[in-house]
């Protein structure tokens, strides 16, 4: 579904380090390499899935795109402008164009505001709908669009269910008429039946408004369903990036293979017969990542060279990138 030649978003070599410990009185200062050189490109109208286990830096990557975290180095080019060079005032008009849907529908809405106020606020602040009367009408429209009723505008978030709140979150993002929406595990906290509804809603909205999604998740089945391309992250780095079909049918990186092998098959006989790739050990701490390929301590096919050489993300087949010496 790549439709435009010029990319909407280009993330180039973004690094985000957090310092931990150490204060006025010394003590060992550690650096958490949450995101360690991530690059990818997003084209208008497509969905890029970003998967990986907890703590691999996928959420931090999303926050760096949103400029909620300022990247330690690297650039985030949106519609041709490098956001990392803009200050808070210059960013304000751009922020409208990049919106976010959070994982937790309980804490992502201000408990002291009604649903109507939450959705209307950006309409007023950004003068998208300056007239108060029209704004109410627009809120009703947005509520209907995400599958809620006009009377929900009077409610407080705590008076709604998780799925309904997530719809409010989507309506709030939509209100700003964004080009890009960072979906940070938007369905992980929901029941499976509600998950499908929200996914379908996101897909409908994408088709209608030509939205671009950066879809962050750990659920491989959900990512497979919604994404055009998928990037796999491990310990702050992208280890594989490919079209959905290529990635799921022919994974090149051993970590991707292990991830896919861990997805349960909903058929007990097939499930019992298939071969398993079980990863030994734990994810190393991003405080002290291993030398060479970060995956080598757990890699079933690692060779000596993996301990010392850092593999670049290279294009192994057209459009199929992997960071593995053996791919």
């Amino acid at each position, binding site marked *: 579904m790549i439709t435009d030649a010029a990319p909407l978003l280009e993330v180039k070599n973004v690094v985000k380090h957090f310092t931990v410990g150490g204060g006025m009185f010394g003590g060992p200062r550690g650096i958490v390499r949450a995101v360690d050189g991530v690059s990818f490109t997003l084209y208008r109208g497509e969905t890029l899935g970003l998967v990986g286990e907890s703590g691999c830096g996928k959420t931090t990557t999303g*926050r760096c795109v*949103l400029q*909620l975290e300022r990247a330690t180095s690297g650039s985030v080019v949106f519609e041709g402008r490098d956001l990392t060079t803009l200050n808070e005032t210059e*960013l*304000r*008009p*751009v*922020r*409208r164009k*990049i*919106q*976010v849907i*959070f*994982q*937790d529908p309980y*804490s*992502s*809405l*201000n*408990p*002291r*505001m009604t649903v109507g106020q939450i959705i209307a*606020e*950006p309409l007023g*602040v*950004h003068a998208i709908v300056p007239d108060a009367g029209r704004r109410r009408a627009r809120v009703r429209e947005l509520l209907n669009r995400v599958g809620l009723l006009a009377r929900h505008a009077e409610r407080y978030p705590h008076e709604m269910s998780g799925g309904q709140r997530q719809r409010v*979150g989507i309506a*709030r993002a939509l209100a*700003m008429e964004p080009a890009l929406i960072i979906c940070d595990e938007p369905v992980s906290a929901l029941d499976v039946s509600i998950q499908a509804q929200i996914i379908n809603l996101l897909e409908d909205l994408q088709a209608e408004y030509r939205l671009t999604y950066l879809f962050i998740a750990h659920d491989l089945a959900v990512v497979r369903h919604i994404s055009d391309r998928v990037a796999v992250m491990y310990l702050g780095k992208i280890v594989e990036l490919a079209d959905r079909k290529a990635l799921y049918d022919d994974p090149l990186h051993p970590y991707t293979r292990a991830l896919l092998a861990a997805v349960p098959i909903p058929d007990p006989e097939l499930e019992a017969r298939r071969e398993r790739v079980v990863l030994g050990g734990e994810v190393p701490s991003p405080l002290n990542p291993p030398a060479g390929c970060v995956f080598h301590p757990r890699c079933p096919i690692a060779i000596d060279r993996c301990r010392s050489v850092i593999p670049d993300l290279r294009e192994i087949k057209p459009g199929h990138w992997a960071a593995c010496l053996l791919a």
Partner: protein
Amino acid sequence: MAIRPADAFTEIPEVTGRRARWWAATKDFVRKRPLGAIGAVIVLVNIIVALGADVFAAYDPLATDYGAMLARPSTAHWLGTDAFGRDVLSRIIYGSRTAMIVGFACAFFGATVGAVIGVASAYFGGKVDLLIQRVMDIFLAFPLIILALAVVSILGTGIQNVIFAITVPMIPRASLVARSSALAIREMPYVDAARAAGFRHQRIILRHMLPNVMAPYLIMLTAFLGQAILLEASLSFLGLGVAEPTPAWGLMLRGAAVQFAEQAPWMAIFPGLAISLAVFAFNLFGDSLRDALDPRLRTQ
């Protein structure tokens, strides 16, 4: 140790409608915290008396009656008269007005300004936070009364200056409490959402963060009320607060009250009782409210 269920307001059964919820919460409060309820009643009586002083007081608090100087409590003067023949009860009633004005004004301004500073400090974080908190620490290093004394001695006496003098030392205390709650709110996704929406700092602080520190704010407000009343009385007693002949409880304890303590003890006993009762009631109510709203703050 007996195991008690966590009895926060949130645990009351689901009732529809705001009024019904408030009513249920009030009943719950009275049932679980009778002492707090007694405090609340005394506070209410205090407020009503202060508001309706003109109705309740039998005498003009400033009217002197040289025929009835130092009169003992009688049917004419229930709590006796002072050295100028002024009715002690009427002066206590009018004095409650002074106490309430000073108490509420100081508690409101102190808690509000402090909360805004604290929340802003937590929101901006980093160096701004460090700087604001160190300045607050400087103020916190002085006891309330010393700081209030210092401010009064700079500005002079009078009710507005007293309010200002008592408000100043309350601000850093309020800012500490508000900041600690706001630090948690700072990390909430809805604050991130507001930032991602491109809202200004001012809007995020005032609309998204401040309303969510309401519970600690209310607790501070009630706690400060008692303190402010006591401080006003102390300042007036020291001659640095409200000036004669304005009726004020602290003022009634000094001067002639000391001089005639043996002949006319009612001159000092009753205003003293009024101070103790009011402060006690405000503290009882404040403590119970704190426990009810936020069980985590119980040990502070």
